[in-house]
Structure formats: C-alpha cells, structure tokens
C-alpha cells in the first residue's frame, strides 16, 4: 500500500524534475541517498525500536541507535555517519505507580533508560545527536516509541554496490550470541503483561566501541577497494543480510565458521541471531588477505563464513551437512500478497463553543502550554548528548543568548572545507490524528518542512522520511486511518515536490493486560513521524530563532485560521477533541516557504521561528526569552482570511500550518515586505529592550509577561536532577 502512495509520489516528483532530479537511490538500499555536492551524496534513515525499549529501555534504545548507524554504514559501499536524530513518545512522567497497568515500567524509568541508551551509543561512537523531539500521551503507557535516525555522507562513486559471483561472504565485527533471537518477529507482535518474561531474549545487547572499530576499518577498506558490497546485520541477522546481498547470485553459508560469543548455539540460532555490531561484506578472494590484515591491525575480528555461489540458491551448511536450501527467487518473491480490509469513518466533529473559548485565559494558558511536557524545554536530555563531536555543528539544538532556546532544526556542515550544509528537523502531532489522520499527516509534513525552512534550508531540496507507528492493522478501522494518512503523504509530498526518500513502519502497537478478570487493550494514538533532511548552499546564511536586537521589526508570515482542534491551548484547558483540526493549503505553503528562503538567502532575516504547538503566543514567547529581549505585538494586525472573524484567543493560540515569525532590521523593511502580498505577511510589532512581552489587540492589552517568568515556566517541567 505504501508503494502505491508514498513511493509513487517520489517517482512522480523524480519524473517531473527530470534532469534536475537530485534523488540518487530511494527505498532501495539501507538508507535513502540524495545528492549533496559534486563529490558527495548524503544518506538518511530513521528506524523504530519500540518493543525492545518497552521491556528494556536502555538496551532497546542503545541498540536502536546502534542499528540505524549500521544502516548508514551498510548503505552503498558504506557511508560515514555524520549526525543522529532521536524522537521519543512516552506516557506522562507524572503517572502514579498505582495507576500503571500490570507489566509496564513507569514512564520516568523508561525515559531515563531510553535517554541513557541513546546517549551512551551516540557519544561513544562519536556521532553527534543534533535533533529530536519528545511527545507525551498516556496511550503510550504500554508501548513507548523510540525513533532513531542517522545521516551519512558517501562519495558519489561509492553510492552503489554489486556483489560478484564467487565473492567470499565475510563477517566483520561483533561475535554471534543468543541475544536478539526472534527480535524481528517480536517487533511486530502485540505487547502484553507477560512480554517482559517471554520476550526478553529478543532484546539485543549493544557495544558502541565495537561498532566504532568496525566503522574505522570499513572506511579504510572501502577507500582501498577491498570489497564489492556491504550490508548490516539488522533484523534477522545473517539470514537477511546474506539473503539480501545474494539475491541475484545465490549463496552458500558455513554456519560453523561464525565466531561465537560462547559455545552451544544451534545452527538456527547462529542464522537468525540479531547480535549487534556485525557487518557482512562481499569480498573478492584475492582481496581477502589484505582485508584480514587491515582488520587484525585494529583488533577487529574478520571471518569468512561462506561464498556467493552462482547457483540461485541459498544453501546453509553446518560442519559440512546441508541444513537448509531455498531458491533465492522463492525467498524474495514467493510470499503471496496479503489482502486486508480497510474502512474509514470520519470522526464526528465536536463544536468549540463560545463558552469554551471564554474559559481560555491568555495568561494562564500561555504558561500552561510552555510547561506542557510536549513543549517544555528538553535541556535535561539535550545536554547529555554530545551534539558537537566531528566539529560540524552550525546551528545547535539549543540557541540564543544563554544557549537555551529551542532551535527549529539543526544545521550541520558535514565537510569542514565546504560551505554547503544540511538541516535536520521533524514533524509529528498525534493529537491531530484524533480528528483526522489525513490532516495529521499533512500537518506533520508541513511542520517538518517549515522547521527546515525556518533555519534556512532550500525548500526545493528537502527530502523526507516516514515512520508510521499504528495500532492493530488487521482491524479495518485502524488500517483505514493508516491508508488515509498515506494518501495525505502522497498528495502533500507531490504538491510540495518534497520526495520521500526512505521509511519504516511499526504496526500492531497495542498493549493487553488482565484487570479484575477482564482483558483490556490500550492502543497507541496513530503516530506518524516525518523527518526532514534539507540543504543550504552556504551555512553562513542560516538563522536562529532567538530575538537579536531591540528596534527590529516582527512579522507574522502565513494565514491564521480558526483551527483550534488538537491545539495545546485546548489540551491544557481540558477541551481536547473539540474544534477544527489544522489543514494544509499546499499552494499557499509552497509560496510561503519559497519567500522565507528567498528572504533568508538575501540575508534580510535576523531571526525566524515556526509556529507550532501553542501557536503565535508560544512562538513569540520562545523567541523573546531565547534572545533575552522583550517585544510588543498586536494580534489585530495578523493576516487572516477576510471571511473569518477570529476572536483574540484564536489569534493567540490557533495552530494553523505554514506560519513563521520573522525578525527584520528596519532598513530591510521594504525588501522583506516585497517577498509576499500583505494577505500573507504583516508587521505585527517590534523587539524591545525591556524584558517584557506585551500582546495587544488594538487598544486592548491581552498579555503583559516578564520573559524571565515565561522562561521559568518553560524550563521547570524537566528540571530533573
């Protein structure tokens, strides 16, 4: 199904771009590959590692990141990891122990374990973790989500691989053990209160230093031309690595040759173990001594475990005895297509009444949104990650005068002698999915793209990735909501000309348990993570979101509509479920993205911040406290549709898509205003020296806030020791 929607969108964009097509290899290799400069391409992959993280948060997240880094290493002839992104979904950290269903770990225990797992793998490997997000919703109580992504850099002439008949099958790196047996199947089953006991053997055990040693040897071997192909051992271990690499040739594997952590493994266990830090290479016989010597010199184990025999069969042997044989053709194409029913019934809209809106107090709501766990500062997490190793850091995850404001996206310069940079961001909003997964998906794409654009990415060179995490898709209604999201992905990607370059999904994310003799099931909210990889021709054009100077002008770009559905303002006022969910007007979005990029590349923009959770009020507050400056704005001046009559709380807190706040120096006023018609761009105020944010509506004062107080509300939630 994803082939007919998401992949189809990419194909149609590539056809349209024709000679200007900048996709190199998409949905084919272990990661998507796109063009970067004349000599290098970049790769991007985001994986989920949900099930293992639920029962063993540290090990699950640790090997989640380790695994996606191996995806980078196993792309083409081996890409060099450049930076990582990590996104998590948890239940509320304030849950009482008594309220937990049986068999689940407390969210705080999961959060701390997951963060430590990512930290220890990324930091030890020396790959900066530059971007991320954390979403909280109590429906993740039994199924936390852990998304790990990695960007790589690869020379253009090393972007494709081709194993040759009679190449040796060589395994490099870690030894094979009983860890991670049936990890692949575990990742698709429903979790229950028994999972910890029954499935803990499916969790892998990571060792980042071994993977770093493999990486060091692999890059040298790649540049010396010592192998014809490489892939990683991920889900399925040797079985999928050898099975994939030998698809067009055939392979014979001598399972007794695999180096083991301890004796006693059966040949089946050796074949399917998901022990970590192993890469499989296709090595011409004459190059093997040189590769072996190189690996030995850095204390990395390298072993021949078979040969790509040109038989068209996958043959397994153990001590000379044949223990398995299947034709490659059957292995890859033999599975009958699965047909499932999908049904979609739109959710009944619930009207947001005037009395509901009257309950929304601007002051209290703004502080509550800033303290809400989805919005609040994640400094506690970010500072534990090395985000600067490799020295490519241009825009850091925390920015501003005190290095503590929330950046929209990270900017990284992967080659220190080349000004070209990459931008990494994400978009996700499970709350919108409670209304309509179509608009949730559209909004997520818009958010991921606008985050990249906000720091200076060229909107015509952004590639995106999808990670669908859904409930039990045998249920037609659940599958229906997935199909609807996929259709949105197809349509919006095509309109934006933003191709999907890779993706990975995780289904059946449900948790079952017995309570008072009754079987209960909790399903996660429909969760779509969109990760975006943008590019800028010159990193010195990039901008951050912190206010820069008193006297500068503040513009709101984009149209604010009555779109309070799924908003944080309603969430913190216990009104979630009412109103209209934000939609995307793709034509308008593209026009705005192009104008913002034009302004940034002409260096007319001093700061830029996208509007997302919490709308205008939250975005202006963040810009002020990040810059240590106040501002006065008037919501009566914001661009709205003439037919819509918006009251003040909607102007403050609506979460309409494709909107930015932009700070411009007075001398650039005319040039900036020339970028878009007044219906899409309007000056709404100025930056001021006083440490106060004042929000007016014509003559009326809606908010007078100390920026220090706002910052305190934003920082206190995760001020964990």
């Amino acid at each position, binding site marked *: 199904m994803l082939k007919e929607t998401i992949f189809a969108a990419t194909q149609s964009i590539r056809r349209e771009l024709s000679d200007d097509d900048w996709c190199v290899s998409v949905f084919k290799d272990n990661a998507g590959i796109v063009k970067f400069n004349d000599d290098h391409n970049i790769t991007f992959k985001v994986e989920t590692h949900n099930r293992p993280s639920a029962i063993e948060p540290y090990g699950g997240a640790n090997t989640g990141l380790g695994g996606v880094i191996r995806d980078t290493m196993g792309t083409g002839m081996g890409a060099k990891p450049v930076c990582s992104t990590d996104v998590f979904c948890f239940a509320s950290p304030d849950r009482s122990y008594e309220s937990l269903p049986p068999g689940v770990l407390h969210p705080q225990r999961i959060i701390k374990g997951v963060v430590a797992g990512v*930290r220890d793998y990324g*930091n*030890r*490997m*020396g*790959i900066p973790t530059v971007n991320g997000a954390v979403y909280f919703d109590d429906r993740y109580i039994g199924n936390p989500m852990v998304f790990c992504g990695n960007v790589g850099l690869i020379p253009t002439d090393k972007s494709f691989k081709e194993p040759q008949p009679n190449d040796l099958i060589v395994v490099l790196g870690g030894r094979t053990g009983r860890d991670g047996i049936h990890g692949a199947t575990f990742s698709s089953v429903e979790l229950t209160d028994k999972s910890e006991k029954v499935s803990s053997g499916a969790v892998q055990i990571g*060792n*980042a*230093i071994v993977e*770093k*040693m493999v990486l*060091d040897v692999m890059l040298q071997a790649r540049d010396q031309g010592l192998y014809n192909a490489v892939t990683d051992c991920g889900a399925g271990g040797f079985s999928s690595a050898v099975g994939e690499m030998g698809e067009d040739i055939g392979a014979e594997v001598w399972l007794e040759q695999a180096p083991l952590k301890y004796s006693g493994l059966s040949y089946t266990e050796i074949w399917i173990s998901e022990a970590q830090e192993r890469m499989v290479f296709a090595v011409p016989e004459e190059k093997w001594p040189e590769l072996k010597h190189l690996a030995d*010199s*850095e*204390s990395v184990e390298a072993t021949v475990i078979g040969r790509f025999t040109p038989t068209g069969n996958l043959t397994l042997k153990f001590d000379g005895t044949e223990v398995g044989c299947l034709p490659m053709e059957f292995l890859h194409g033999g599975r009958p297509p699965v047909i499932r029913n999908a049904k979609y019934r739109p959710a009944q809209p619930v009207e947001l009444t005037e009395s509901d809106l009257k309950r929304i107090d601007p002051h209290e709501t703004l502080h509550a949104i800033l303290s809400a766990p989805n919005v609040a500062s994640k400094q506690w997490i*970010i*500072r*534990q*990650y*090395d*985000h*600067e*190793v*490799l*020295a490519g*850091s*241009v*825009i*850091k995850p925390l*920015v501003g*005068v005190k*290095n503590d404001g929330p950046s929209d996206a990270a900017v990284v*310069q992967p080659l*220190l002698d080349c000004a070209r940079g990459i931008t990494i961001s994400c978009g996700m909003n499970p709350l919108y999915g409670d209304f309509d997964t179509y608009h949730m998906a559209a909004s997520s794409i818009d958010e991921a793209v606008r985050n990249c654009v906000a720091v200076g990415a060229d909107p015509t060179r952004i590639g995106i990735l999808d990670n669908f995490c859904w409930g039990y898709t045998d249920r037609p209604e659940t599958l229906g909501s997935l199909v609807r999201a996929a259709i949105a992905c197809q349509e919006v990607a095509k309109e934006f000309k933003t191709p999907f370059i890779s993706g990975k999904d995780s289904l059946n994310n449900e948790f079952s348990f017995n309570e008072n003799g009754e079987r209960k099931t909790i399903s996660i909210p429909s969760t779509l993570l969109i990760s975006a990889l943008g590019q800028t021709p010159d*990193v*010195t054009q*990039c*901008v*951050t979101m*912190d206010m*820069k100077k008193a006297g500068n002008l503040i513009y709101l770009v984009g149209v604010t509509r009555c779109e309070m559905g799924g908003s944080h303002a309603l969430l913190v006022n216990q009104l979630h479920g009412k109103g209209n969910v934000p939609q995307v007007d793709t034509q308008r979005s593209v026009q705005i993205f192009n104008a913002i990029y034009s302004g940034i590349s002409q260096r007319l923009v001093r*700061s830029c911040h996208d509007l997302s959770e919490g709308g205008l009020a939250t975005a202006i507050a963040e810009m002020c406290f990040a*810059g240590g400056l106040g501002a006065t704005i008037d919501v009566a001046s914001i661009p709205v549709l003439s037919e819509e009559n918006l009251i003040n709380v909607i102007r403050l807190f609506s979460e309409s898509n494709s909107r930015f706040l932009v700070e411009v120096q007075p001398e650039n006023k005319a040039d900036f205003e020339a970028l878009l018609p007044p219906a899409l761009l309007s000056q709404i105020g100025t930056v001021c020296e006083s440490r106060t944010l004042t929000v007016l509506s014509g003559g009326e004062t809606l908010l007078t806030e100390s920026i220090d107080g706002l910052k305190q509300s934003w920082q206190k939630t995760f001020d964990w*020791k």
Partner: protein
Amino acid sequence: MDSQPLALIVRSPGTNCDLETSIAFQMAGAETECIHINSLVENPEQVDRFQIVCFPGGFSYGDDLSAGQILAFEVANRLFDRLRRFPQEGKLILGICNGFQVLMKTGLLVSPDDRGFPASLTWNTNGRYTDRWVHLVPGESRCVFLQGVKSLYLPIAHGEGRFVVRDEATLDSIVNGGQVALQYADDSENPNGSIANIAGLSDPTGHVFGLMPHPERHIQATQHPHWTREGLSEHPDGRLIFENAVRYFQNSTFPATSAVSVK
C-alpha cells in the same frame, strides 16, 4: 629543526575526535599523521619522528575501568620513556578531553608516589555526561599552548571531567609548580565541580598540556553558539592553542612575542 612540525594524532578503539583535531593542527600549519595505538605499541620508536604528540578526545576502549584508563596502561607500558623525554627535547604533548584523562593516568602531568596518583579526573558532580560551552581563563603556568591567551570560549563534552586531588598539599604543589594552565572563568562556568575551577593542567615545563574543553570544536566561526547574534569571528578561540604549538617550532625566541588578545 624543520619549521613545519609533524604532529602525531594517536588513535585507539573508541577515539572519535581524531579527524577534527588533525584538521585543527593542519589549519595552524602543522603536518599530521593518525596512527593506531596497536601500531605504536608494536613499534614505539615511531613516536620519535614527531615534534608534537596529541591524544584526542573520545571514549578509548569505551572508558571501561575508568575514562582513559586502558589506553593509559598501554601508553605507560610502551611509550612512557619516550614521551617523558619530550619536554627536554623541546617537543610538545597535548591531551584533549579523553586525552587529558589519559595523560593524567599515565603520570605525564602529575607523577604518582608510593600511595598512587595524588590527582585525577572523575565523575562530574551532576553525575552525567554534559555538553555545554564554558568561559575559560589561563592560570599561572608556562604552558606553551596558551601563550598570549587572555580568555577562551570553548565547549566541554564529558562525563568524567572533575579534577580532584588527594589533599590540600597536592593542590598547593600543583599551584606552586605553575601547573594550573587553564581554569573555568568562575564557579558558574565550572561544569563538573573541579577543584579550584581547574580545566587544564600543564607539566612544570609547560610542554605537556591536558585540558577537558575541546579547542578543536572551535576552529571555525560557525561553531560558536552565538555567531548568528554576534557575527562571524575572524579568529575562533580554539585555533590559538594549535597555532601556539606550531609557532613554538617556528620562532627560535620562544615565547612568542606577538600576544594574541581574544574577546
């Protein structure tokens, strides 16, 4: 002596700042070679070819046992005698972050006595790995790498960076011996609880220098966290340390007379 020094960047399993450290030395005018510790252990005489030896950042051997400990064993067993002669030979040794931890645990900065090492680097007081930028000031030392430096703004990224001493007497001897090369500018800038805000030490001659902050992560203007606010600096702070090392081999009359002042 050749005016362009040759710098050895020592790699080990888990070293991960070798590339940018190498680039920093090259930008400053040195030639560099990265060599794996296995090769150096096998042929220690290779070290003699170099004017500068640098132990870069990372997690050598996973920092198992404690940060830098296993690599320190290898250096102490196979390279110590050669490296100990470096100061008399007018050569330099630099240890950054994990490299500083290695230097401390080999005894190249503070010698052990019959009770073991009187000073070391241990877990940050906050108990966790921390990445942030800090303001630094040079202490009173003869450190070659800090000649003319007035202040520095550099990132730290470590879990075990708290400088500790066995007793008051040890601290006195480090201070009086002119070994306090680099300090966090004040208590609020001290990210790990180091005693006396110590961020870096030199040996008494000033030829061996170890520091927790990462100068190789501030060799380009766009690495500064405030470049979008304050503009692009012509001279990123971290470069000074590498330039001083190179200049030392170019100027016959060291210390350098052209003091560089940094904001």
